């Protein structure tokens, strides 16, 4: 039996959990520095300050897209970063959420605030049904199976034009609340921000719960976890469903915000993009997920000015970051900062 210690488990966090388990001396400073309290505070602070830098609807648009992507990625990170299960099909769940909102509001006259949870429940049920057979697979077979699910969803959406508007997509009317149309960057910025904070809060709590510890065990060594009595499948299914529901909610938000949905939302590349955001920011780090989502949402906007060189540069950045920071931006930059601090302290 080899190393049982989970790998996606930073030294920093280990210290924190140990001290909590022992019920001893978490100094106020330590509490402040922890992901749950300090990180959350920083996120809220950034969300509050960011509008000062945004001067028009387009910039709000980019910020909102960052937030919506971040919700998906925070959920997906639970699956990839903590449970160690890859999914190349989460764009499918995202698109299902978006289309559930679009179809329920336009074709059945439901209110958006009702369509979103209905969509999320539907997606959750669907994820639950497929999770058991799919999560029996591992590694690249799991990647293929989830990819297949995503592609089937994508094809179904673009073929069933009577319901979905087909490959050209469909409109979603602006959401009305008490007779007021929800339109414009600022309103949606705060709506998405609230959902993002909720998603991050949920994720952090889940990670710090006994479930989270079991999950980290999974990532480290599944067989070991199983032999020590952890019902691995149950936890994997649970996280799969949670991440699918989060993707669905984000999809609903994007449908109402952008007032337009297309089957592209379910495309293979959209799935890959979500996974890239998880890894780019740093696996098994909730704030890494947020940073990854923000960075990769902003990047194409910054690169748009390079016209035909855009894709070359994007591909190059993805490769270089992953080669030199295989753990992702946040953990790698964090390690760099720590090293420098230590050097400074020494000199």
């Amino acid at each position, binding site marked *: 039996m080899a190393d049982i210690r989970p790998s996606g488990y930073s030294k920093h966090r280990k210290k924190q959990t140990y001290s909590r388990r022992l019920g001893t001396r978490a100094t106020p400073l330590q509490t402040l520095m922890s992901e749950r309290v300090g990180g959350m505070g920083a996120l809220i602070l950034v969300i509050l300050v960011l509008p000062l830098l945004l001067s*028009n609807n387009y910039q709000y648009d980019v910020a909102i897209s960052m937030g919506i992507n971040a919700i998906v990625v925070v959920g997906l990170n639970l699956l990839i970063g903590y449970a160690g299960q890859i999914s190349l099909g989460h764009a499918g769940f995202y698109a299902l959420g978006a289309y559930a909102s679009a179809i329920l509001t336009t074709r059945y006259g439901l209110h958006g605030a009702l369509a979103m949870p209905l969509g999320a429940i539907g997606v959750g049920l669907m994820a639950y049904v497929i999770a058991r057979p799919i999560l029996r697979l591992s590694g690249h077979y799991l990647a293929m199976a989830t990819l297949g699910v995503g592609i089937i969803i994508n094809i179904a959406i673009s073929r069933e034009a009577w319901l979905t508007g087909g490959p050209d997509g469909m409109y979603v009317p602006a959401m009305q609340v008490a007779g007021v149309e929800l339109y414009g960057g600022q309103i949606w910025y705060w709506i998405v921000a609230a959902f993002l904070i909720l998603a991050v809060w949920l994720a952090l709590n889940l990670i710090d719960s006994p479930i989270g510890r079991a999950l980290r065990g999974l990532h480290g060594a599944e067989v070991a976890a199983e032999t020590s009595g952890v019902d691995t499948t149950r936890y994997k299914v649970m996280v799969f469903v949670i991440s699918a529901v989060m993707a669905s909610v984000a999809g609903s938000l994007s449908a109402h915000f952008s007032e337009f949905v297309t089957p592209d939302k379910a495309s293979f590349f959209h799935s890959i993009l979500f996974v890239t955001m998880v890894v780019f920011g740093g696996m098994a780090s909730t704030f890494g997920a947020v940073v990854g989502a923000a960075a990769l949402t902003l990047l194409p906007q910054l690169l748009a000015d390079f016209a035909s060189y855009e894709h070359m540069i994007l591909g190059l950045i993805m490769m270089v970051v992953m080669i030199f920071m295989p753990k992702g931006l946040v953990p790698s930059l964090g390690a760099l900062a720590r090293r420098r601090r230590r050097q400074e302290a020494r000199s």
Partner: protein
Amino acid sequence: MVKRFTRALMMVGAACIALGVTAQARAQEDPIRIGSFLAVTGPASFLGDPELKTLEMYIHRINGAGGLIGRPLELIHYDTGADANKARTFAKRLLEEDEVDVILGGSTTGTTMAVIPLVERAEVPFVSFAGGVVIIEPVKPWVFKTPHTDRMACGKIFEDIRSRGLSRVALISGTGGFGKSMREQCTQVAPAHDIEIVADETYAPSDTDMVAQLTKIKNTEGVEAVVNPGFGQGPAIVTKNFAQLGFEVPLYQSHGVASKKFIELAGDAAEGVRLPASALLVAEKLPMDDPQRPVVMGYKTTYEAEHGEGSVSTFGGHAYDGLMMYKQAVEAAGTADPAAVRDALEAIQGFMGTAGEVTMSADDHLGLDLSAFRMLEIREGDWVLVE
């Protein structure tokens, strides 16, 4: 953790500021800003690529000749890759950040439709280069388009089939936006032309082989003609597979493949294929007194001088028409003010473009009729006018 995270977000913030600063710097000059979003990459790149080249080329020329109403033109373009969500974000960027005076573009119906609510709200004139009839039907005050609609293409094809004394038609359509939309339109207008659709197959745009679908059509009783709505590589493969199976009935392609590229891709199999297209493809073969001749010859020679012999396509022509109509509207209005230009666009009478003669009105934001469409046949690797 806190520090790390705030630092990362500060970087993001700084980037946002940088975006804002460039926008302000732009505002200090005084050009007419033309915004554009085209599918320069992705499955519709053969539309977006010539469209962008055309816009760049002619904007350069207009600027060389002293600009428009004394102001230089500035083109701001973003590549959508035919992704409607990207198109939406970029349109917002054009409207909110770049503060453009007009938007020309949208290579595909999907990207165009995604942007329409934004331009309607922002009240900026928008001339689309996409084919779908839904773009202008119902009429949206700020939205215009230059190419013929897919419904007109179906009508033209069915007219030609009827004139050959045939009526039982098989459809084989791409499942992309273009193929799907044209398939629907054809099915809708078929009864009006006394056409019966007896087989209806589809293929995905990236498919490499359509033999199975065509075999099925071939084995369907009484098929008298085959129509293939689609664009890109698909129709070329359909044409080749069609020839491989030794199918004897006439094959019709759509205006979506109206470029020399199609003949090059399909090779000998393209012999005898018919398709509706604008006069641009047969510019030299038009009679000397054809009123459209000077326009299409002018565009063709200009484009091919820069991008090579045989490179002209009707798609670049749509961009040419859009830009020139905008130019005419600005000149007529004497200002680039969006509202005035919109009114001038709607008032365009007898504008001669590569697609035909355009006469806009309050309830027609396309302004073309079926007569602008020509039925072409491919013979010995070249286009021949059928009429």
